[in-house]
């Protein structure tokens, strides 16, 4: 990834209506976030109007296939996208718009306001710096802590994630994958941020380690009033960990709602297919009956007209090619973007408060 940053190309749009201003109880509010990458002469719409918000202390899981834009959303939250990315929409972090922040302010917000645990802990740690130094770095930058003080904090953090204090002097390559992921978590916690973004924190880890890490994250986040955005392709993992679930497909959220409900009975056929892909062991229904979706994951560069899920949808209807459905209330606290949940008279006209999942909750 190209690490160079740039000021956003377009200023964040003015809020559509004043009523949509977040209350102080929202620690993160994303509104109409769109990201496209300039590549090979064209634009790849990686994220197409994603909106969601997060209350303090709550956990939102984002699931979806590879390439559906999950990581792009995560990086956009802290404006970490490469220069080739064009961002629009709003990302309000504690009421402040990240996308048009001044650089100095942005730097202050990064890590202190929201920190990220990346998927590849192997590569997310600097291979030639000691783990302790890397954990101490944000402390020194943000906390203005004295080195000695930072050191003791580092030891404390390491212990919290279950690593012995002497590991502080280790280099990343001396740690196993799970330990590295722990170190990453320790680092993410260092500045006591209000939000932790965990981008596939357990993929590529062994089942057992995965369970360890998930439990650790769960322990650390609960009870500290830290909100969390967890990204994974494994719906079952998210359902286990998070309060709410959002399922992304082709750069959009296609389903959102309470975790258990979404996992158990998705309203969007894609959500349903995704949860069926993780069979319940012991469930006779899935014995010798692997289920999946025919067809290929979408290519963001050439999305079909109408519903972008149409080519793979097992329940495709005529309307699907005409309507590009938007998120629509689909039960208590739930929304889905499928013609099946759209009221029949609703065609192409977007519902009020378009794409705002939060607006439609609590009906």
């Amino acid at each position, binding site marked *: 990834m190209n690490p160079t*940053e740039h000021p956003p190309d377009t200023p964040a749009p003015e809020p559509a209506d004043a009523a949509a201003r977040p209350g102080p109880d929202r620690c993160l509010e994303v509104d109409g976030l769109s990201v496209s990458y300039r590549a090979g002469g064209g634009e790849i719409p990686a994220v197409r109007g994603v909106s969601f918000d997060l209350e303090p202390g709550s956990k939102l899981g984002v699931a979806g296939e590879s390439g559906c834009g999950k990581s792009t959303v995560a990086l956009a939250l802290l404006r970490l996208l490469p220069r080739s990315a064009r961002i629009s929409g709003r990302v309000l972090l504690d009421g402040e718009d990240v996308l048009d922040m*001044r*650089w100095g302010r942005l730097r202050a917000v990064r890590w202190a306001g929201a920190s990220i645990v990346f998927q590849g802990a192997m590569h997310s740690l600097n291979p030639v710096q000691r783990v302790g130094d890397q954990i101490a770095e944000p402390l020194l930058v943000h906390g203005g802590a004295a080195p000695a003080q930072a050191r003791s904090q580092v030891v404390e953090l390491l212990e919290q994630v279950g690593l012995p204090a002497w590991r502080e002097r280790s280099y990343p390559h001396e740690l196993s994958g799970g330990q590295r992921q722990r170190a990453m978590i320790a680092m993410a916690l260092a500045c006591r941020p209000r939000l932790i973004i965990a981008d596939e924190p357990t993929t590529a880890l062994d089942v057992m380690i995965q369970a360890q890490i998930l439990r650790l994250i769960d322990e650390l986040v609960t009870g500290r009033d830290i909100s969390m955005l967890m990204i994974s392709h494994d719906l079952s993992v998210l359902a286990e960990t998070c309060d709410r679930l959002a399922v992304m497909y082709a750069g959009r959220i296609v389903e959102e709602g309470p975790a258990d409900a979404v996992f158990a009975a998705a309203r969007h056929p894609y959500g349903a297919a995704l949860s069926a892909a993780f069979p319940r062991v012991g469930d006779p229904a899935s014995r010798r009956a692997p289920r999946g979706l025919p067809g290929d994951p979408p290519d963001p560069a050439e999305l079909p007209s109408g519903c972008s899920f149409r080519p793979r949808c097992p329940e495709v209807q005529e309307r699907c090619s005409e309507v590009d459905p938007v998120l629509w209330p689909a039960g208590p606290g739930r929304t889905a973007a499928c013609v099946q949940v759209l009221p029949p008279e609703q065609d192409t006209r977007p519902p009020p408060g378009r794409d705002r999942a939060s607006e439609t909750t609590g009906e």
Partner: protein
Amino acid sequence: APPAAAEAEGADTLTIAASQPVDSFSPFLAQRLISTSIHRLAYDYLTNYDPRTNEPIPGLAESWTTSDDGLTWTYTIRDGATWSDGEPLTAEDAAWTFTTMMEDEGAATANGNFVANFESVEAVDATTLKITLKEPQATMLALDVPIVPKHIWKDVGDYSSFDNDEFPVVGSGPFVITGHKPNQSITLEANEDYWRDPPKFDRLVFRYMPERDAQVEALRAGEVSFVSGLTPAQADALKGTENITVNTASGKRFQGFTINPGARTQDGEEFGDGHPALEDRVLRRAIMRAIDKDEIVESVYGGYAEAAGGYVPARYDTYHWTPDASQRLDFDPDAANEMLDEAGYERGGNGVRVSPGGDPLKLRMHVHNDRPDYVAMGKLLVERLADIGIEVDNRTVDPGVLSDALYSGEYDLIFTGWTVNPDPDYVLGIHTCGALPTEPGTMRSDAYFCDKDYDRLYEQQLAAYDDPEGRAATVKKMQEILYEEAVVNVLTYADTLEAYRSDQIASIQVQPDPGGNIWGQDGHWSWSSAVPAADSRAGAAVSPWALAGLGAVVLVALGGGVYLLRRRAATAGDRE
């Protein structure tokens, strides 16, 4: 007395560009021209050469007599000559020098050939030196052997490794060697007590500059006062330059090539693989007729040369010989072709002639790759010989490879060139039958030439040391034989091209005068006689340019630094 400790400031310094480093400061070992030139300046020899005429003149020896049989030579050593450390210089020093060379192999390294024929050398008294020869020797007035101080040298154990680099070096010449920065420079200072007129320049510096272009640029910049060995192009370019005088001298060297007439030993054993057709004199002469010497003079030397006649360069008019009109093998490809046609060299299908013996005329030509003039001549020869149906394989090779080919007789044409001393004895001697190898590989000549008449004439001139005119006539006859046989073929006598800064050197002695050269004279005249120009201040201390140049560098560095910083500041700025 030690040389006047010339104070750095204000002393007149003459800086000479040297293209070779010295090989040794020991006169017993030094063989390079630069070294022997310096020894000329630092040591006196028994005899010297007249700056104008090149005739032998008294040196350390004021006068000399010869016995009737020519085997005993008695020299009278100058009274009052001293070494630079104040010790008197006597016949004993000279006798010791020669005797050591006769007795010690190491000491004979450089000049052993001069004493090879000596029976004994003795100092009869402080001023009388007596040399007894085994056979008469024509070079007794051209004994180019530096006389070294016995009191310093007698304790040296191993002459083959003694470098004589304790400065100042005790000598007896017009200059004293006072310093040496290896591969950079050699400094000599004037010997105020020299018995001839002491030099006008206080100091001589030989700066080692191997690159010819660098030398000329240094001359232009005034870093050096004198440059030798100019290329014709450089001479042309410098001619128009202010404050620079170009000196063109008729050369001491000839350039040519020899043809392998069939390599054989003194016993007549044939070896090597020279082209058999070359034994034919007609072919050899035809080759000569195919070559345009004037063209060589023009294209290779830019006119700074003379198309050659005989073996001895025109500079030595006593011995120089030119063929008369009937003998001349002038450039005439048609005549050459005719000669070959008549002699039965038929042209083959590809235009290459075939000898009557059935061998196609495909000849190898060995050229020294370190001599640009030979290389250029070689290329011309290839084209010219093609015109008469001879195909030449041009092999431009390292000198070592070339000598291998020569010694083993595995060549057809080979380039050569000799520096001819005022006395041509040596260069004539190498073409006697006696110079043929005793066994394959022990060659000391550069052609397998052997001619009874020539040998007879050689003996004759050798014995005629007391009859200069008769000797000259004999020498000319020998050259005629060489010319007629066309085994040893001389193409040109290249001029010596030199230049000096006339704003540093007011005048300088050439040898012979007029028309002579400055570098590599027989004798030390050029440097001992050079007169500083009124405002000569070359090579003193750090030049102001050094400061200017370094200043420029610092400025550039600073500028670069500032640029970088500004870039950084700028990039940091647009990040914020």
